[in-house]
């Protein structure tokens, strides 16, 4: 869109823009390098003792120890385990929430809405503490429960938006061929909404993975606690930065790969998805069932 905003640059402004670009690169890279060098300088503390810089080998030699990697690996596994369990529950709760909010009966709709607003407006951390103290579940299940309820509420809202965005004819057609309202929702509307909202749902699952680090505060032994609390306290202050960088790198690897997956799926289920659907791989098991993929592809071009 930016190319629309100004005329195609002539030779003079192209040269100028190149110059600014080079200067900008130099300034940014220079600042970054300066930061690295500055952090690497040996530091003299107030009492005159000299500490080695951050990149000094004496700050990194713990990583020769296999046990350190083992602890980090177990921490990462604990993080992933919590995220996986919470993701499953969050999806289930999200589906329930979306159905409850769209229910025709006010007796279901209104309480669901109130509950949903409550869960969405409350910090996950507070919910974890609440579940930990009130239900005495232990830190793992406190974390799982809080994460799944909170993310379930958000996924539920996304699914509801997806169902609302469908053309009305989808529901009407389902009812017209004699499906019950619940069956219409499950078999006709929900598969389409789920596919359309898949990028948002996966983005929310990245958030969930990130938020497992909150369980550190209620005492769950995950990556952050293993790396920054246990290992750093055991090996001493001088290794704190090294452990921080390694833990950061592990988190970034996990989250960025999940985000990358989300982007790929977003691209695949985007507007051009109609041609790439692999329908033959999953033949409809039930002959009564309307093929959601064909409908999904068509309704998408209508709604967007």
């Amino acid at each position, binding site marked *: 869109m930016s190319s629309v905003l*100004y005329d195609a640059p002539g030779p003079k402004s192209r040269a100028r823009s190149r110059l600014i670009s080079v200067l900008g690169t130099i300034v940014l890279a220079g600042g970054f390098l300066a930061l690295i060098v500055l952090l690497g300088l040996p530091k003299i503390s107030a009492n005159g003792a000299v500490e080695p810089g951050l990149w000094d080998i004496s700050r990194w030699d713990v990583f020769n120890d296999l046990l350190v990697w083992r602890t980090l690996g177990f921490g990462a596994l604990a993080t992933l385990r919590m995220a996986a369990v919470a993701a499953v529950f969050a999806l289930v709760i999200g589906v329930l929430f979306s159905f409850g909010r769209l229910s025709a009966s006010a007796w279901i709709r209104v309480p669901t809405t109130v509950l949903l607003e409550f869960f969405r407006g409350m910090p996950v951390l507070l919910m974890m503490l609440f579940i930990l103290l009130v239900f005495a579940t232990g830190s793992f299940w406190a974390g799982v429960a809080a994460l799944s309820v909170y993310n379930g509420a958000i996924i539920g809202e996304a699914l509801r938006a997806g169902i609302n965005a469908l053309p009305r004819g989808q529901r009407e057609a389902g009812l017209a061929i004699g499906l019950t309202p619940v069956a219409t929702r499950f078999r006709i509307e929900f598969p389409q909404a789920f596919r359309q909202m898949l990028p948002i749902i996966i983005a929310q699952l990245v958030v969930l993975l990130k938020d497992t680090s909150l369980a550190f505060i209620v005492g769950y032994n995950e990556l952050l606690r293993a790396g920054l609390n246990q290992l750093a306290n055991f090996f001493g202050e001088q290794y704190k930065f090294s452990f921080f960088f390694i833990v950061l790198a592990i988190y970034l690897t996990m989250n960025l790969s999940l985000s990358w997956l989300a982007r790929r799926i977003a691209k695949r289920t985007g507007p051009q998805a109609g041609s790439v659907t692999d329908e033959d791989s999953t033949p409809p098991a039930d002959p009564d069932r309307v093929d959601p993929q064909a409908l999904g592809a068509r309704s998408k071009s209508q709604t967007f």
Partner: protein
Amino acid sequence: MDAVIDNLPLFLEGFRNTLGLLIIAGIGASVIGLIVAAMRISPISSFRVFATAYTELVRNTPLTLVLFFCAYLLPLLEFSPGYFQLAAIGLTVYTSPFVAEALRSGVNGVHVGQAEAARSVGLTFGQTLTFVVMPQAIRMVVPPLINVLIALTKNTSVAGAFFVFELFGAARKVTNDRGDAVIPILLAVAAFYLVITIPLGLIAGRIEKKVAVLR
């Protein structure tokens, strides 16, 4: 219930600190986010690359890790202005890429035809931006920005685990003292959070509806 009423001053102090964190980090994140968003759509490629890298890196780092860095590691670098300030810095840095993304999506959401039309009737670059693109972009940006603010409100609770006495810190302290009245205490603290988040959510919803009518 008496546990809540007895400790009301503590809760109010925590609420004040939560609001303080929200306001400081909100303003700081808006400023940094504006700069990053401007760099992200700027014609200078090195700025674009830098802004993209910054956004991706910070967005994929857990807030707990950011605040851990601020609370434990920055003091080791002889930078320790106090835990409240450190937490405010951490929240600012963590929130800024989300603000930047909201702003960028708003500018991208303005239809290209608008800019084309403005250009074709002879408006300059500055006029196109100020009279045509920005008024629409700002309107579209407000609901996602409010959502970022709501998330920030909830995220301030993490600062409570890093030596800042805000609402979550107050909840932890009071539940430690009064183990017999955990449920009312936690519900009261949740109510304080909801006092901020639910009105913000209602405002966002209303503005969204208004914009939807306009389009």
